[in-house]
C-alpha cells in the first residue's frame, strides 16, 4: 500500500494547489471582475447554441430563458471547479513547467467546451424531461465533468511522462 515519495509529494501539492486555486476564485473581487463576466460569456455561447437548435432563448447576464424553462448558471455550474481541479493536478505533476502550463490551458478549453454541452443538455432536459433534470444536474454532469478532468490528466501524463505516468506521479 506504500506510495513512493514522489507520489506522496504529488498528492500533497495537489491538495494545497486545489484549495489555493479554489480560494482565489471565491474572492469577492475575483468573482465580480472575472468569474461573473466569464459565466455571462458562457451563458451567451450556450444560448447561441440553443438558438441554433431552434429553442428560441434569450440570455440576460447568467440566465438563459425560454418560454418553458430558464436556467441560471451559478458557481459550480460554470466549469471553473473542474478547471481548477485539473490545473492543480497538472501543476503538481513532475514535468517541465512549460508542459504543465500548456496542459492546464488546453484542459481548460476542452472542459469549458464540454461545459457548454452540459448547459445546453441541462436546458433541454429542463424543457423536455424535467423529472430527471435534478439527477443529471447534480450527479451525472458533475461526475462527468470531474471524470473528464481526470481523463485529461491521464492523457496528458501519458504524453509528458510516459514512463512515470503509470508508476510515479
Amino acid at each position, binding site marked *: 500500500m506504500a506510495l513512493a515519495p514522489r507520489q506522496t509529494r504529488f498528492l500533497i501539492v495537489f491538495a494545497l494547489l486545489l*484549495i489555493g486555486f*479554489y480560494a482565489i476564485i471565491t474572492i469577492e473581487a475575483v468573482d465580480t471582475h472575472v468569474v461573473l463576466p466569464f459565466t455571462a460569456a458562457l451563458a451567451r455561447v450556450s444560448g447561441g447554441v440553443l438558438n441554433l437548435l431552434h429553442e428560441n432563448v434569450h440570455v440576460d447576464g447568467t440566465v438563459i430563458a425560454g418560454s418553458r424553462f430558464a436556467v441560471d448558471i451559478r458557481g*459550480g455550474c460554470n466549469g471553473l471547479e473542474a478547471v481548477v*481541479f485539473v490545473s492543480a493536478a497538472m501543476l503538481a505533476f513532475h514535468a517541465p513547467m512549460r508542459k504543465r502550463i500548456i496542459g492546464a490551458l488546453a484542459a481548460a478549453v476542452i472542459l469549458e467546451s464540454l461545459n457548454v454541452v452540459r448547459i445546453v443538455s441541462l436546458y433541454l432536459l429542463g424543457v423536455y424531461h424535467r423529472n430527471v433534470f435534478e439527477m443529471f444536474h447534480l450527479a451525472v454532469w458533475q461526475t*462527468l465533468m*470531474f471524470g473528464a478532468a481526470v481523463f485529461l490528466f491521464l492523457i496528458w501524463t501519458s504524453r509528458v511522462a510516459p514512463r512515470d505516468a503509470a508508476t510515479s506521479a
Partner: protein
Amino acid sequence: MLLRALRFLAGLALGVWIWWVAVPAYNQLLAPASQGLLHADPRLAAAVLVPQERKVFVTSSTPLPTATMPADQLTYNIILLLALFASNERPWRLANLRGVAIALVILFVSHCVSMVIAIESTYAVRQGAWSEQHYGDAGANFWLMAELVFRIVGMFGVVFASWWALSHSKSVST
C-alpha cells in the same frame, strides 16, 4: 484509453444507480456517525441528527434551532469513485476490489466530516440571531469557506486522491 473511457461510463451508470437507491439506507449510517463527531462542538452538543429519505434533519430538545441538510448532495462523489475504479484495467481483480473497499471507508469518513462542516456552516451563517450569538465573524467565515471548498472541489479531490493512491500503490499495481 477508449476502453478505459467505456469502463468509466459503465462504472458511472452503476454508480448513479447505487447512489440513487442506497442514499436513504446510507443516511441511516451517516447520521449517527456524524452526530458523534458533531458533539465535539459544545454549541451543537444537543443536536440530534434524524435521517429521513434523502435528507438529514437536525433536531434537539433544547432551544437549538432546527435545520434540514440535503445529505444526498454531500455523498454523490461515490459515483466518481466507482467510475474511476471501474476504469482501471481488469476492474474485478482482487487488488482493485480491495482498493474500492479501502476507498469506501475513506469516503465514509469524509462524508461524516462533510456533514459536520455543512451543519456547522448552516448554524454559523444561516440561523439569524442564533448564529450571531454563537459564532464570531472569523468562525462564520471559516465554516462557510470550509463548506464551499468541501462541497465541490474537496469532495472530488478526496475521491481522486483515494483512487490515485490506491491504484498506484505498490500492493495494487503489482
